[in-house]
């Protein structure tokens, strides 16, 4: 047999790398803007699309899917060709994948600031974009598996396994969590409600971290770290164990996001146990990565790339130790809803993902451009400023998370809350928010040094678009026998089979199980709990549009410190009509689940116009446009009818007269407000619907509050 000549495609890799850098800088910039708004809300210039609730979604989606996403694809397209000794199967699919993904990001950049969101964290994009994501993901999958099938290297290097796991799992997660019923092109309702929706969301949320931010990046680590160190991975055997142990354990840990909620105890315990078990494969992987550099530490001193990798792998170890610890109920009771969680997340994203990606860019780009890096010194500066940025980001947030949590739980000797005004616990940690924004700015500064370095490097070289390579063809393992049955043919293609059988079983399972879930018989029905009125529903959708759930939870845990502050703890049965659930995950402001009746309508009117009028020193944004925007009444029958389809017991009559019902309720609230001095409202003002919703919150089972 003779060696075959072929060419690697470097253009797609280059494209993804450039996209990584551009979107990365944008995502960091949006993050810094949001961070500054938490101590200087005026930075939003009273522009709706610049307010915190909307920016936060843009920042998280940008960091995860645009920055890390493009970097993963760049690394996959580069490493897979070389590991499998073949060109990617189809240039056309590569191009569709690249441009499709950028188009999705652009549509996210447009829709999220407009308030077009499903409200589910890291899955905020509305249904047309969800479908586009599915299609592009399938294109990526076909391209990948096709390439695997035409490989010239029999052995699948461990990185490839990490990529395969990523593809399969993310596909399932994305589809299940985004099952939603469209109301219009820009609005849909999750088919799940309340507790169920929360569970699906955090099953997704946890595994998105596992299979989008961890496994593919581990694949990159197992390729680029040995390459950059020019020595084999410390233990290939350990890397294989790392992979299989990780994917078998990860998928069960999701419930640790819902400790102390209405989730059954056994499921919570399952989440905790598997989370603890995750320490072992994760640390195995970290140790494997670090020991790969054994005997090469002198080179780490000189090489910015290796320095980035060392910090990245160490951050992986820190985050994967902290995560399981946060799954312990007693620690979770302290850390949940506080800044501790963003701190944990940013060790993972800024440290593990970001630094691994920066290292990869510095190593890969000069090679693609057949030149050397413009300035190693500048890269070292990036490393130091970036590291400082991570420290300034995370440390203040640990302090602030712990401080605020302790303040929430402080009692006076007479049994009243020491800090009964929530705002006092916010103003206390403002200095930490300032430090955090400095940390973010440092990290962004580092990334700008990267841009300069990359720009100069690219200018000094020329892109090797088609890289020539050679390899022996793969000896055919099986000879086709005459009269062979089709299933024998299939059996020889285990990967194809694996994929199709997964797809078939998933569709089958979904078709069977989902209809039975519409109203869950096992969630205790509370007689008093009634569906939202049409106006309240409209108000709820405004709450979603503005992203209030980015700062406010609606889930009171059964702790004395919480029931004292907010009222009766939240029951599963109260959320049965909540499509989607709005429990939130972070209390930058107080919990709102028992808000109804706490204040008068006028208080809310003033507070929404300018929070500092009622709460001096508040960091909540102003929402003046709610006072002037006109509510869309026309769409209400459609919304109610969609809810009806999902099992919310609206009568046909209510659906038909939704507009009139809403208008009548709005007129009552508006008239009431207009009695006050200097208040001039119309029933059609958006603020009226929002007030209707806020006054309804948590009142079903708590009428006397």
């Amino acid at each position, binding site marked *: 047999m003779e060696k075959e000549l072929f060419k690697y495609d470097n253009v797609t890799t280059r494209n993804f790398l450039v996209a990584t850098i551009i979107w990365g800088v944008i995502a960091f910039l949006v993050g810094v803007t949001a961070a500054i708004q938490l101590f200087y809300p005026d930075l939003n210039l009273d522009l709706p699309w610049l307010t915190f609730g909307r920016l936060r979604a843009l920042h998280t989606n940008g960091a995860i899917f645009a920055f890390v996403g493009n970097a993963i694809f760049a690394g996959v397209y580069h490493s897979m060709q070389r590991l499998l000794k073949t060109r990617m199967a189809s240039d056309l699919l590569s191009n569709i994948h690249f441009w499709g993904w950028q188009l999705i990001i652009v549509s996210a950049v447009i829709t999220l600031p407009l308030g077009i969101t499903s409200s589910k964290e890291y899955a905020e994009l509305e249904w047309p974009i969800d479908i586009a994501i599915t299609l592009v993901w399938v294109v990526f999958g076909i391209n990948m598996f096709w390439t695997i099938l035409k490989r010239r290297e029999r052995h699948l290097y461990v990185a490839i396994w990490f990529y395969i796991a990523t593809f399969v799992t993310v596909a399932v997660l994305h589809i299940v969590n985004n099952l939603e019923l469209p109301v219009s092109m820009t609005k849909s309702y999750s088919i*799940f409600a309340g*507790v169920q929706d929360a569970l699906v969301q955090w099953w997704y949320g946890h595994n998105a971290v596992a299979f989008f931010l961890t496994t593919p990046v581990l694949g990159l680590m197992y390729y680029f770290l040995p390459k950059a160190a020019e020595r084999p991975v410390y233990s290939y055997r350990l890397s294989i164990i790392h992979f299989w142990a990780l994917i078998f354990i990860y998928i069960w840990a999701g419930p640790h996001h819902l400790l102390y909620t209405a989730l059954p105890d056994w499921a919570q315990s399952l989440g905790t146990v598997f989370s603890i078990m995750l320490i072992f494969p994760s640390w195995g992987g970290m140790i494997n990565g670090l020991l790969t550099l054994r005997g090469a530490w002198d080179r780490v001193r000189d090489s910015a790339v290796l320095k980035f990798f060392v910090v990245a792998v160490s951050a992986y170890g820190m985050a994967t130790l902290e995560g399981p610890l946060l799954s312990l109920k007693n620690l979770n009771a302290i850390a949940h809803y506080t800044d501790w969680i963003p701190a944990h997340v940013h060790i993972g994203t800024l440290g593990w993902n970001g630094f691994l990606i920066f290292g990869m860019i510095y190593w890969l780009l000069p090679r693609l451009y057949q030149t050397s890096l413009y300035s190693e010194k500048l890269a070292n500066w990036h490393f130091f400023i970036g590291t400082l940025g991570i420290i300034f980001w995370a440390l203040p947030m640990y302090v602030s998370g712990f401080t605020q949590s302790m303040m929430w739980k402080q009692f006076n000797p007479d049994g009243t809350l020491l800090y009964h005004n929530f705002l006092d616990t916010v103003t206390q940690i403002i200095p930490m928010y300032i430090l955090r924004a400095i940390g973010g700015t440092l990290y962004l500064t580092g990334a700008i040094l990267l841009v300069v370095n990359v720009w100069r490097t690219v200018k000094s070289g020329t892109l090797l678009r088609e890289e020539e390579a050679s390899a022996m063809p793969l000896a055919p393992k099986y000879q086709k026998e005459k009269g062979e049955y089709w299933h024998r043919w299939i059996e020889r293609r285990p990967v194809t089979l694996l994929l199709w059988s997964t797809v078939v079983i998933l569709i089958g*399972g979904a078709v069977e*199980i989902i209809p039975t879930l519409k109203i869950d018989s096992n969630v205790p029905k509370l007689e008093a709990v009634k569906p939202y009125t049409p106006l309240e529903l409209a108000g709820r959708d405004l709450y979603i549009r503005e992203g209030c759930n980015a700062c406010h939870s609606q889930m009171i845990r059964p702790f004395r410190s919480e029931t004292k502050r907010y009222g009766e703890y939240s029951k599963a049965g109260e959320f049965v009509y909540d499509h989607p659930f709005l429990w939130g995950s972070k209390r930058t402001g107080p919990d709102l689940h028992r808000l109804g009746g706490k204040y008068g309508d006028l208080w809310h009117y003033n507070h929404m116009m300018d929070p500092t009028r009622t709460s001096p020193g508040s960091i909540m944004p102003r929402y003046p446009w709610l006072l002037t925007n006109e509510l869309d009444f026309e769409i209400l029958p459609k919304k109610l009818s969609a809810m009806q389809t999902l099992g919310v017991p609206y009568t046909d009559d209510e659906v038909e007269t939704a507009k009139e019902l809403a208008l009548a309720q709005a007129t009552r609230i508006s008239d009431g407000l207009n009695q006050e001095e200097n208040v001039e409202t119309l029933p059609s003002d958006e603020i009226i619907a929002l007030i209707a919703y806020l006054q309804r919150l948590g009142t079903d089972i708590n009428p006397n509050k």
Partner: protein
Amino acid sequence: MGIIYLLLFFSLIIAAAFLWAFLWSNSDGQFDDVEGPAMRMLRDEKSPKSSTNS
């Protein structure tokens, strides 16, 4: 909590798919050599023509 069973179901499917992948790769001999692949991935064979650049 019917939803738990749905998620358990999906999770089990994924786990089963991976178990299968594991058994396949084991029987295919993917794990027979746990030294070679780590060394091999370090070598990028250029085509004979372009073997000048390192």
